[in-house]
């Protein structure tokens, strides 16, 4: 067997294992979700099946028993429990080891395979072992067609049983589970009909449900589920959005419209609520027109319809090819160069004033810009896989610490440059560990302070202009300003009597060598913490911010550039040389007048809006020849809250910069992070202001 094919299998298997892990964690949350069970089964099946084909017989035989177990779960003959899930996660890890050791001479740990297989066997009835996938056909309408079922229509289902629902032995839970098995399903329960305890018939049903279901099955299949309760319930099933609608029909129904459509409110209520400028849902709840759960249910519907449409528009993700990252980098590089050449062409044609040439130049400009965007786009990856990794982290660490933590991710579809994503993993691990370890309190403490037992950590990503914001939010204890302050004084980071705002104190956690953890745990590190996070984010051209409220929790936001290869820069000049300052760091530009300098008393200080800002003279840094111009300009930058000015001859303007790596000859050049080629073909150096500031501080100290 050729190694290339084996590698392909290995790559595929790693991907499947990631899918598998994700599905397992979801299964832990919703053990009744047959769709997820199906996912687990299929992933195992593929790992096993192609394992045998590619000569990984040990993996094939190892996964055989696991597959059988999940086949039974799929057919409802076995209940999924924490034990099976934990065991399967262990098995995933073991498969990874097996994939890793395959190429080497050493055999994977056979004793371990045996032990795990035995553990799985315990779940099987005695004679069952030899028939993997044998009974798979017993309930075809539930599990098997899921792959092909490209989740077509979204239905709004209202299920309001009569009070006597239970009296003939009906339990609504299996019905809800059957609906959940049909597709993507959100269920919300209404308890508004619940009477006071005294008046309650203990054997009566007072609960109703709103269900939003996106499924490939038709309305009849849904109707069929309710067939036994038709006489004892009010049921309505309405399609609310076929995802195959025209693209321009993308306006989502407003919450008010949904409530109106459902008959929860009347036209008059809606108009009244709209008249006040607040969120419609809030108004309707406040005025007692609807219950909170009705609004939540309408919001849920909106959310699911939106999600389904997005998915549909995203198209078929499976038709893709694999390309080595290096080839992509080369493509991006070439596209960047083409943009540069095109700029020269445009300049030349403008000079020649030849209408034909100008026409061609314009076409080339459009095409090359488009080419560059596409090339950059190819390197963009959704954050989903990175986020998924953290689910396991949160699960493992929280159980290790005896904390209950829910983990919510949002914006997995947000895309970032692959290079940025690769460098993001470690800082995020660190931040999430911190939230688990220091942020979320122990369950008893949470109960004592009136919080839900289960804490949560929310990991979100969203676009904001040319940046992506990634936030980690926990609902834990918040930062302890007193403790941080004391620690900072102890470490000599601030004077004991320094007056600091709360924000400034929070920022101290990013100071080098800072850690408030009084005892070192295995979870979050030993003082090599947040400063490393900060510097690695800043090295990506990003920034870190922290917001925290006592007892309410902490949010840490990472602001990252969409891509590393193109930055928005500010073009400046020193004599006849051009430089680029990353625009993200620039706050403002001011003139440097003689008066300002003298006020600095020979030290490099300038007063900007009543604030004293130190500045660095770039002419001095780069030994620029020639006379200083009469009127110099200062570019004020802000890095991690610290303002520093850079004196330049002239600010030319904003410039979108394609970064080119400097050859190794320039490695020694401090304070420069790269170069770019300008429209006229000349080279401009991109300043690494972080380094420049550090260097200046060193020089000052010397």
């Amino acid at each position: 067997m050729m190694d290339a094919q084996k590698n392909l299998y290995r790559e595929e298997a790693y991907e499947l294992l990631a899918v598998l892990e994700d599905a397992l964690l979801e299964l832990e949350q919703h053990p009744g979700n047959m769709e997820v069970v199906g996912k687990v089964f299929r992933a195992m099946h593929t790992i096993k099946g192609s394992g045998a084909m590619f000569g990984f017989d040990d993996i094939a035989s190892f996964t055989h028993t696991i597959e059988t177990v999940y086949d039974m779960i799929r057919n409802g003959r076995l209940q999924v429990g924490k034990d099976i899930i934990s065991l399967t996660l262990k098995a995933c890890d073991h498969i990874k080891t097996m994939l890793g050791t395959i190429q080497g001479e050493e055999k994977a740990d056979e004793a371990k395979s045996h032990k795990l297989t035995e553990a799985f066997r315990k779940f099987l009835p005695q004679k069952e072992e030899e028939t993997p996938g044998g009974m798979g056909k017993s309930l075809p309408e539930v599990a098997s067609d899921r792959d092909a079922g490209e989740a077509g229509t979204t239905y709004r289902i209202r299920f309001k049983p009569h009070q006597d629902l239970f009296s003939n032995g009906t339990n609504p839970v299996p019905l809800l589970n059957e609906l959940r098995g049909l597709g993507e399903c959100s269920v919300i329960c209404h308890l508004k009909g619940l009477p006071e305890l005294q008046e309650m018939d203990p054997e009566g049903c007072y609960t109703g449900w709103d269900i939003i279901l996106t499924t490939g099955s038709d309305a009849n299949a849904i109707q069929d589920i309710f067939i036994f309760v038709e006489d004892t319930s009010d049921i309505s099933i309405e399609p609310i959005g076929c995802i195959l609608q025209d693209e321009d029909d993308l306006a989502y129904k407003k919450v008010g419209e949904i409530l109106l459509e459902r008959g929860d409110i009347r036209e008059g209520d809606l108009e009244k609520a709209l008249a006040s400028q607040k969120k419609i849902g809030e108004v309707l709840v406040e005025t007692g027109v609807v219950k909170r759960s009705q609004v939540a249910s309408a919001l849920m519907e909106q959310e699911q319809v939106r999600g389904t449409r997005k998915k549909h528009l995203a198209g078929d993700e499976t038709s893709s090819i694999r390309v080595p990252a290096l080839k992509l980098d080369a493509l991006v590089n070439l596209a960047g160069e083409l943009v540069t050449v095109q700029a020269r062409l445009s300049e030349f044609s403008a000079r020649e004033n030849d209408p034909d040439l100008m026409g061609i130049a314009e076409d080339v400009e459009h095409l090359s810009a488009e080419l560059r965007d596409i090339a950059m786009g190819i390197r963009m990856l959704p954050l989903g896989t990175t986020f998924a990794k953290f689910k396991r982290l949160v699960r493992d660490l929280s159980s290790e610490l005896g904390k209950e933590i829910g983990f919510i991710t949002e914006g997995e579809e947000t895309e970032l440059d692959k290079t940025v994503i690769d460098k993001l993993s470690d800082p995020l691990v660190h931040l999430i560990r911190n939230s688990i370890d220091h942020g979320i309190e122990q369950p008893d403490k949470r109960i004592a302070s009136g919080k839900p037992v289960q804490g949560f950590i929310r990991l979100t990503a969203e676009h904001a202009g040319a940046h992506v914001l990634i936030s980690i939010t926990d609902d834990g204890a918040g930062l302890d300003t007193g403790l941080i302050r004391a620690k900072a004084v102890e470490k000599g980071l601030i004077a004991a009597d320094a007056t600091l705002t709360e924000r400034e104190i929070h920022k101290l956690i990013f100071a080098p060598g800072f850690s408030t953890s009084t005892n070192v745990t295995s979870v979050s590190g030993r003082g090599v913490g947040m400063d490393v996070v900060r510097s690695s984010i800043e090295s990506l051209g990003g920034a870190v911010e922290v917001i925290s409220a006592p007892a309410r929790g902490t949010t840490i936001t990472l602001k990252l550039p969409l891509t590393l290869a193109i930055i928005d820069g500010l073009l400046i000049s020193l004599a006849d040389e051009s430089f680029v300052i990353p625009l993200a760091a620039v706050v403002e530009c001011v003139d440097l007048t003689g008066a300002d300098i003298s006020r600095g008393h020979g030290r490099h200080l300038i007063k900007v809006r009543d604030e004293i800002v130190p500045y660095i003279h770039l002419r001095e840094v780069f030994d620029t020849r020639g006379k200083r111009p009469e009127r110099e300009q200062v570019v004020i930058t802000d890095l991690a809250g610290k303002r520093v000015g850079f004196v330049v001859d002239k600010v030319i303007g904003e410039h979108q910069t394609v970064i080119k790596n400097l050859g190794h000859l320039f490695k020694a050049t401090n304070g420069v992070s790269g170069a770019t080629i300008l429209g006229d073909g000349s080279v401009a150096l991109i300043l690494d202001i972080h380094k420049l500031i550090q260097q200046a501080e060193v020089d000052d100290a010397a």
Partner: protein
Amino acid sequence: MTKKILSVDDSASIRQLVSFTLSREGYEVVEAVDGTDALDKVRSWPVDMVITDLNMPNMDGIELIKALRSDPAFKFTPIVMLTTESVMTKKDAGKQAGATGWIVKPFKPEQLVAVVKRLLV
């Protein structure tokens, strides 16, 4: 924990079909030949569900359902009746008596499994 199901039918072939289909799905099935036999069996063998034919000698399905429902231990136990399309009145009588669901004969094994899953937690 294995769920226990009582299959009540005077036809041995139907009992066998029910028994075979459901035990293959991991349920434990016990058989009874009519209503009287069924009441006798459940006294010593508490079940999670009863699947009963309607037309049977001695005690028929309707009577069995009524008897089970009047026993506090079976007040909320899911009961499935096996009926034929032609006798809708029988189905309604069964519903009145307190049946939870029904299966129309003839049925395919997977239909039986689907109904059991729909009614058993």
